[in-house]
């Protein structure tokens, strides 16, 4: 029975483990989030933090790997983790579609681009080859491929990186999905095409009331399109809230570090960028305490050894804004960044005169 009270998509305590010779990889730990139709959830996080693994579980792709999955994934009243492989196959590519991260490996090098897109259409629609081809050309035009009627017969290597990504998008959109997962869809694109693609995704979202999950490491894209943002670190949600709250008032030091490390188009150019030092912990033997401990600039402000020994819970700091961090007074983060910016600007100006 469809459950009316549940959100359109509700991921509940999703855990994905991979048994490997070295031990169990805890790729996603007890992840929960919700998404309504017509809304966009942005997922950001360090490479390897579980963004792709957790999202591809929605498409049931773990069924074809050795992954051990638990939890629930409710889509429109159905728990996708409980349905048969065949039912999942009927939904995949139709109700739920994904734009994959790597356009080169997702496109077969020996088949024509157009045939690969048409195949995605024919998998869910009983249509003639001719109709599928017409629909393919229409989609290629829609994602901005010039002369689509000619380029439909090209092979992937004849397309630039950005054009291949647009082909992937055309393929994902061809069946008008209700939930679209876009895994780094614009990473390979220049900004005008990126803006077009984001517009396109948003137009489609409006037209079909699509729910959109946007996985990206580009905080600018998040700022542009996301209603809510989920920040992942080492397989867990570490901050979750509205895009505005998260960007203006990041409350977990990893989120803060991410925002600090990106240059912007108007800031000073003469200072080195500020990377987050170090690298993420092992997912085979996750640390006992906070996974960000050791890279965190603020753990010394937390009394005792809590960061090292005690896993922080994901708790609200205000309505609808959650963080997984022991640090109580988040305002120290803003104090430091403001100070650093002021110093840098002063140095640059002094240097200029």
């Amino acid at each position, binding site marked *: 029975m469809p459950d009316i009270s549940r959100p359109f998509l509700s991921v509940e305590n999703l855990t994905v483990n991979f048994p490997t010779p070295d031990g169990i990889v805890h790729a996603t730990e007890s992840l929960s989030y919700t998404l309504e139709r017509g809304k966009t959830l942005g997922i950001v996080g*360090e*490479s*390897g933090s579980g963004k792709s693994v957790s999202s591809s579980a929605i498409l049931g792709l773990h069924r074809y790997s050795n992954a051990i999955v638990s939890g629930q994934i409710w889509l429109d009243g159905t728990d996708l983790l409980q349905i048969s492989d065949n039912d999942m196959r009927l939904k995949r590519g139709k109700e739920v579609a994904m734009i994959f991260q*790597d356009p*080169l490996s997702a496109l077969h090098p020996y088949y024509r681009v157009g045939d690969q897109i048409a195949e995605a259409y024919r998998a869910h629609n009983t249509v003639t080859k001719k109709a599928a081809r017409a629909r393919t050309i229409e989609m290629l*035009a829609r994602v*901005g491929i*010039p*002369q689509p009627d*000619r380029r439909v*017969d090209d092979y992937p290597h*004849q*397309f*630039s*990186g*950005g*054009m291949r990504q647009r082909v992937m998008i055309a393929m994902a959109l061809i069946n008008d999905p209700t939930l679209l997962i876009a895994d780094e869809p614009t*990473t*390979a*694109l*220049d*900004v*005008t*095409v*990126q*803006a*077009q693609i984001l*517009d396109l995704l948003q137009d489609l979202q409006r037209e079909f009331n699509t729910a959109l999950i946007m996985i990206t*490491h*580009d*905080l*600018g*894209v*998040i*700022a*542009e399109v996301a209603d809510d943002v989920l920040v992942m670190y080492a397989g867990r949600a570490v901050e979750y809230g509205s895009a505005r709250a998260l*960007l*203006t008032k990041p409350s977990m030091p990893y989120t803060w*570090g*991410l*925002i600090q*490390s*990106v*240059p*912007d*188009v*108007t*800031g000073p*150019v003469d200072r*080195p*960028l*500020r*990377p*987050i030092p170090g*690298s993420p912990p092992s997912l085979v033997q996750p640390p006992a305490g906070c996974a960000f401990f050791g890279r965190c600039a603020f753990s010394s402000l937390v009394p005792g050894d809590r960061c090292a020994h005690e896993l922080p819970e994901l708790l609200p700091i205000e309505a609808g804004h959650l963080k997984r961090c022991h640090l109580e007074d988040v305002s120290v983060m803003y104090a430091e960044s403001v100070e650093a910016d002021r110093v840098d600007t002063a140095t640059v100006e002094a240097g200029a005169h």
Partner: protein
Amino acid sequence: MAAPLLEVKDLVMHFPVKSRGVISQTLGQVKAVDGISFTLNAGQSLGLVGESGCGKTTTGRLITRLHKPTSGQILFEGEDIANASPRQLKPIRRDIQMIFQDPYTSLNPRQTVGEIIGAPLVIHNLVPKNKRLARVQELLEIVGLSPEHYNRYPHEFSGGQRQRIGIARALTLQPKVLVADEPVSALDVSIQAQVINLMQDLQKEFNIAFLFIAHDLAIVRHFCPEIAVMYLGKIVEQAPREQLYSAPKHPYTKALLSAAPDIQQVIAGGRRERIRLTGDVPSPINPPSGCPFRTRCWKAQDICATMPPPLEPKGGAGIVACHFPENTSPEDANTPVSTARNAA
């Protein structure tokens, strides 16, 4: 005046388009790079930005001579390498290296890190065998990896570490020019910053000239004091970054900058004014007559269809190829201004 380290003149790369079928005919040419010129001095960085498919990677592959140009000159230390044979190229390949976009596919998974980084030393027989290990370990340290990583395989490394391996490999031969094709776009934001800082340190230390290709305008601005904007195989504007970002002259540059997501602006609460480019990206097989941008330009007039605008100074630093450029100095105030969309 000494000759620049690298000088590119009227560089052209046309790829043939073949028809479908048993007997394939050449139907036309993809004009991937269509007459570009620029110079690069020792230790400097030139940024290359522009729409997907405008020919940035092809330009990089021409300079590193992974492609042979259709026509034009590539003067490296005064010598034209555009038509050099593989044998003639061998010594030059040491000096001009490329860092590839994808740290996942650009490293051979079956070779150890030591073999990958050391391979150029073997090919060029530069360092005596007994010193190679030490040299590779030194390179590993330069790029911030550990000498113990020598015997590991690429899959054991993260994306950022793999990109460092790619950089170490490119540095093995102490190049004078590094073509960095989207060197950080496949990486995490936090790791991007590490790799960018690393490349800047290396540039200072070894006086390397960079042709830096990227679509992230904030990163290009950070890395390159001078930036060239490409559109459909041509450079349409080139200027120092301060001017390009604050007062772009070419309408395409203006549109490009307006499309760059800027979180600071969103944080500040402002909704940015984006210039939405309408119309299709023209095909590089059949580019528009006159100005390549005219079919999408909101300022286009009749002359734009008939006369290709020359790439020349229009007030201020830098050069621009536009009949009706923006942000020109007051002396050029007689520039016709039209906001009407009369593009085809």
